C-alpha cells in the first residue's frame, strides 16, 4: 500500500482541474505516470472510491473531488 501516492493523486485530482479533466476523459492515460500498485491503479481506473478509501485514500478527499468524488449515503 502506497498511502502517499494514493493521497497525492487524490489531492491533485481535487486541486488541478486540468488533471481532473484528463482523468475523466481517459483515466488510464491520466495516471500512467503515477507510482501506484496494481490494485490502486485498477481502483482509480474503475473510479471505485470505496476501494480507493480502503486502500488508504483519505476519506475527505474521496468525498470531495468535483465530478469524481462520492458523497456517501446518509
Amino acid at each position: 500500500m502506497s498511502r502517499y501516492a494514493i493521497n497525492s493523486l487524490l489531492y491533485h485530482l481535487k486541486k488541478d482541474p486540468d488533471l481532473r479533466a484528463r482523468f475523466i476523459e481517459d483515466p488510464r492515460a491520466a495516471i500512467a505516470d503515477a507510482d501506484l500498485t496494481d490494485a490502486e491503479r485498477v481502483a482509480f481506473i474503475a473510479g471505485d472510491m470505496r476501494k480507493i478509501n480502503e486502500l488508504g485514500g483519505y476519506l475527505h478527499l474521496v468525498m470531495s473531488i468535483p465530478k469524481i468524488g462520492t458523497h456517501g449515503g446518509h
Partner: protein
Amino acid sequence: MGRIVFGGAMSHVLDPEYYQAACGDLGRQKVIEAMDAIARMGDRLVERKPDALIVVADDHMNAFSFNCVPALCVRIGKKVQRMTQDNAEAFDKVLDHMANEYVLHEDLANSILEQGVVSGFDLALSWEAPVDHAFLSPVNTLLGPRAIPSLVPIFVNAFIAPQPTARRCFQFGQHIAQVVSKSPWAVGMIATGGLSHFPELLLSRVGETDTAFDRKLIHWMERGEHEPLLDLTADELHKTGSHEFLNWMVLLGAITPARADVRYFGELPRINLAAVEWRL
C-alpha cells in the same frame, strides 16, 4: 488583564443543502435547528465585545496536503483567505457564499506562537494556509451579518495519523489561556467539528455515529470533569469517529474547569450535530 470571555464548540458543516442531500428533510430540519442555536450563541459572543476570536479547527487536506501536516499550527499574518475550490461539492460547497478574506489578530497569534515555543510547544506557523469550512462555517453562522472579530485560526491535525494526543491538545489550550491572561484582550474562543461521524474514516461506515460515546463526552463536559478526557486515545477517537474532538480538547484546556451547557444535540445517521457553550 485579558480574559477568555466566551467559549463554545459546534459542528462545522452548517449547511441545510448539504444535510438535505445527505439525510433528507430531517437533516435539513436538524441542521437549521443547530444553526439557530449557534446564532444565539453568537448573540452572547457579541455582547461580550471580544477583541479577537480564536478558532480551533482541523484542515481537510485543503491547506496542508501531504507536503506537510503540522500537529498544531498557528495561522499568523494580517489576513487569511478562505479555501477556494473549483466546482466545489459536498462540505466544500458551503464556502461558496462566504467572504474571501478575514482580518487576523496578529498580536495575539504571535503571542500564542512565540510564548508557546518558549514553553515547550513545538508549534508550526503559517502565513499562507487558507481556512476551509471547519473554520468559516461556524464563524459565519455565529455572527451572520454582524462584524467578525479579528480571528486567530489554529489548526489541529485531527485526521492524519499520528495525531497529537488529547492530553497534548488540552495542555496547548492551557497555554492559550495563560497567554490571554497576560494580554490586554477580551477573547472569544471556539472549537469546531463533531460530534461522532465517519468512524475509522471509512466510506463504508459513513452513516454511522456513536451516540453513547458522544453522551459520555457531554456528561464530563457538563460537569467540568475534564480529567477523564485527557486519557482519550487515538484509537478510541478513530473508532468512534470522534477525530475532531481534539479541537474541543484545546478549548477545554483553555476554559477548564468551566462547565458546559448543551445548546443543541441532534442525532442524524450521518453525524450527531452539537452546539455547546461554557459558563465563563
